[in-house]
Each structure stands twice: as structure tokens, then as C-alpha cells.
């Protein structure tokens, strides 16, 4: 077999992890899609603005999850000469689509809740709604834990947005169940009619918070913001370890692209040192940093001038 066609165990493990990530997102999409039909029936039977809001939210999130799956699939298949740095930014763009769906849902939920506050109505039959929402809560709890575990293995914007999404969905489910039980249990009380829109407002708060986090993280990464402070300190600590091995530091550049972290360090070495020695030193520094910063690709460029 040709040397170039064999895969190392690291590459195989990485590909398996990528497939697991793709499968996890696809599972989320299918489950979301399956849950929509009984949700529609439950909304009609219960006449609840909160359930309607929850349905709209679920529908937009399911579309967003589908977009995430397409992005991950594209990234996995898209290793080509056309994209030398990979297609990690597709993950950020996809996360923005998720956030866009969250924002849209937030507007719908808020509008629906305000309308119901102005014109309160008692809710209808909640049996099916409780069954469907309870089932959704269990599924969302499972998906939240699964994506959280996967995001611990790889720093991925999509997995980050996914576990936050399922956490907010789980919290929304719990709010819906609690509100439905209270609304139905105290149906005769005048105040019970306001529980439904109040629950909807609570759901919208969760949505807004999650959308804000996803949007800020993704936009900063798309704009090639440098790595956060904790990772910058890791880079400097490594430079301190090798302080006596180089004569000048001309610059450090860093950015994120999807799950990947790119770090470029421009250094000047003693002109009397052999290239072999310098290369060996560079290799050690590179390996040290890549081991400390997950998903990083480090480039150390010997130079005598400041980086432009």
C-alpha cells in the first residue's frame, strides 16, 4: 500500500468523532421533525399561546438544526484544494442561522404572550400536550447531555450551539408542563388565565439569552478575533519556557475557524545557529503548544522583521 493512502490512528479517531458529531446533529433533526406533528394537535386542543410559541420555536430550531447538519456534512466531505484552511467557518455561519431562528422565535413568542395578556383566555384540554411535552423534555435532556459530552471532546461552534439549544428546549418543556398543570389545576381562578402568557415570556427569555451567546461567539470568530485571554496566556507561558532560545519576538497572530485554532508566531533566532537546530526547536515549541491548546495548528515563522 502507498504511504500516502494509509491513515494514522489519530486520523481515524478524528474521522470517527466527526461522523459521531454528524450523526448526533442528524438525530436531533429527525427527532425534532417527528415531534412536530403531535405538537400541532396539542396546540389546537389546548388553545395555549405558550404551546403555540413552543411549536413555532421547535419548528424554527428544527430547520436550524438541519442547516447545521448540512454544514457539518459539507465540512467532513469538503477537504479539497479549494479550501486550504478547511471550511470551519461554515460552522460559524450555521450557528448564526441557529441564532437567527432563535431570534425569530423570540419575537413570535413575545408577540403572542403580549396579545394573550391583553385578551386572556382559559386553556383547553391539556392531556395530549402534557404527554407530548413530557416526551420532548426527556428527548431534549438526552440530546443536551449527548452534545455537551461531544463538545467536551472537540471545541466546535456547532456542538456548542446545539447543546445550548437543547438545554433551552428542555427548560422550555419544563416551563410548559409546569404552566399547563397550574393553568388547568386552577382553571376557576381569574389569575390562572395569565399563567399561560407568563410561561411564554419565560420561554422567550431563555431564547434571547441563548441567541445572544451564539451570535456574539460566532461573529467574533468570523471576524478572526484573536484567541481569548486564557489561551493567549498559554502561548506566552510557552514563549517564557523557551525564552533563552530565541533572540526576538516579532509578533503573534491567532484566530479561530470552526473547531480549528490557528496560531502564528514570528520569531528571530541567533544567526549563528544551524537551521537543523532551529527547526528542531520550532518542532518542540509547536508540539508543546498544540498539546496544550485543543484543536490548534501552530506555525512558527523564523523572521528578522516584525509581522505585517
Amino acid at each position, binding site marked *: 500500500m502507498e504511504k500516502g493512502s494509509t491513515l494514522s490512528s489519530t486520523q481515524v479517531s478524528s474521522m470517527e468523532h466527526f461522523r459521531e458529531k454528524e450523526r448526533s446533529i442528524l438525530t436531533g433533526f429527525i427527532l425534532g421533525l417527528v415531534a412536530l406533528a403531535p405538537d400541532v394537535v396539542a396546540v389546537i386542543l389546548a388553545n395555549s399561546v405558550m404551546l403555540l410559541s413552543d411549536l413555532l420555536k421547535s419548528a424554527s430550531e428544527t430547520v436550524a438544526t438541519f442547516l447545521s447538519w448540512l454544514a457539518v456534512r459539507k465540512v467532513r466531505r469538503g477537504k479539497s484544494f479549494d479550501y486550504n484552511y478547511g471550511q470551519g467557518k461554515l460552522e460559524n455561519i450555521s450557528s448564526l442561522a441557529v441564532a437567527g431562528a432563535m431570534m425569530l422565535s423570540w419575537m413570535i413568542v413575545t408577540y403572542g404572550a403580549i396579545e394573550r395578556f391583553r385578551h386572556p383566555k382559559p386553556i383547553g384540554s391539556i392531556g395530549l400536550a402534557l404527554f407530548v411535552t413530557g416526551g420532548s423534555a426527556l428527548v431534549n435532556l438526552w440530546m443536551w447531555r449527548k452534545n455537551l459530552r461531544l463538545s467536551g471532546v472537540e471545541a466546535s461552534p456547532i456542538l456548542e450551539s446545539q447543546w445550548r439549544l437543547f438545554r433551552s428546549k428542555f427548560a422550555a418543556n419544563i416551563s410548559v408542563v409546569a404552566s399547563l398543570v397550574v393553568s388547568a389545576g386552577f382553571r376557576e381562578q381569574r389569575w390562572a388565565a395569565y399563567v399561560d402568557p407568563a410561561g411564554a415570556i419565560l420561554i422567550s427569555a431563555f431564547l434571547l439569552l441563548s441567541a445572544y451567546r451564539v451570535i456574539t461567539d460566532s461573529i467574533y470568530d468570523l471576524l478572526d478575533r484573536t484567541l481569548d485571554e486564557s489561551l*493567549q*496566556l498559554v502561548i*506566552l507561558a510557552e514563549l*517564557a*519556557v523557551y525564552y533563552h532560545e*530565541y*533572540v*526576538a*519576538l516579532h509578533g*503573534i497572530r491567532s484566530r479561530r475557524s470552526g473547531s480549528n485554532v490557528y496560531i502564528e508566531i514570528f520569531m528571530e533566532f541567533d544567526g549563528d545557529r544551524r537551521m537543523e537546530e532551529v527547526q528542531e526547536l520550532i518542532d518542540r515549541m509547536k508540539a508543546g503548544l498544540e498539546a496544550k491548546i485543543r484543536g490548534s495548528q501552530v506555525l512558527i515563522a523564523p523572521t528578522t522583521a516584525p509581522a505585517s
Partner: protein
Amino acid sequence: MMQIEVIEDESQHVVIVGLSGRMDSSNSRAFEEKMVNLIQAGKTRMVVDCAQLQYISSAGLRVFLMAAKQLTMAKGKLILASLNDDVRQVFNLTGFSSIFQICDSREEAIRNHGD
């Protein structure tokens, strides 16, 4: 907001750079330019007094590292003085305390330049 004050101690031939406030990515460039100008002007015996420096980010640390290297090439020396607990913790965490000479006071740092 960070302020930089430069004082020349002519009797000891030492330049003292006093920093106050917070040094982060928004203002570390000003500190870098000040240090580069001083080094290019031949001021290679330096004390950076951090008594009033409340916070330093990685951008600030990077300037210290670059300046230390430039001073070494110019056969000069950079000594730090009066780091508060928070700033000292950052220096310890990154291993910078092992590459810089750090004194408890400005006077001690000036004396060390004479040794």
C-alpha cells in the same frame, strides 16, 4: 485607561517608566511605542515601576517580552519594580517572573542596575 510616565535618573543613568491603571489590548500599543522609542534613543538601562499598575493582559505581557529581548540585543537591562499581587500572579502564572528581575521597590531596582 493607562498612564505612562517617564523619568530619567541622570545620576544612575537609568530611565524609569512608571505605569498606572490597566494595561490591555486597547492601550498596550502606546506602551510598546514608548519602549521602542526609548531603546532606539539609547536608553538601555530601564526600570518599569508597576506600583500603580492595577491589571495587565496578555497584550501587555507581550510588550514586556519584546522589550526585554530588544534590550538584551542592545546590551541593556530591564528590571521591574513594585508589582501588586494581581499583576505578580499573572507574571507567576506565565513564567514571566523567572525571566524578569523583579524588585520590591523602585529604589531597589535602580540599585540593582548599579550592581
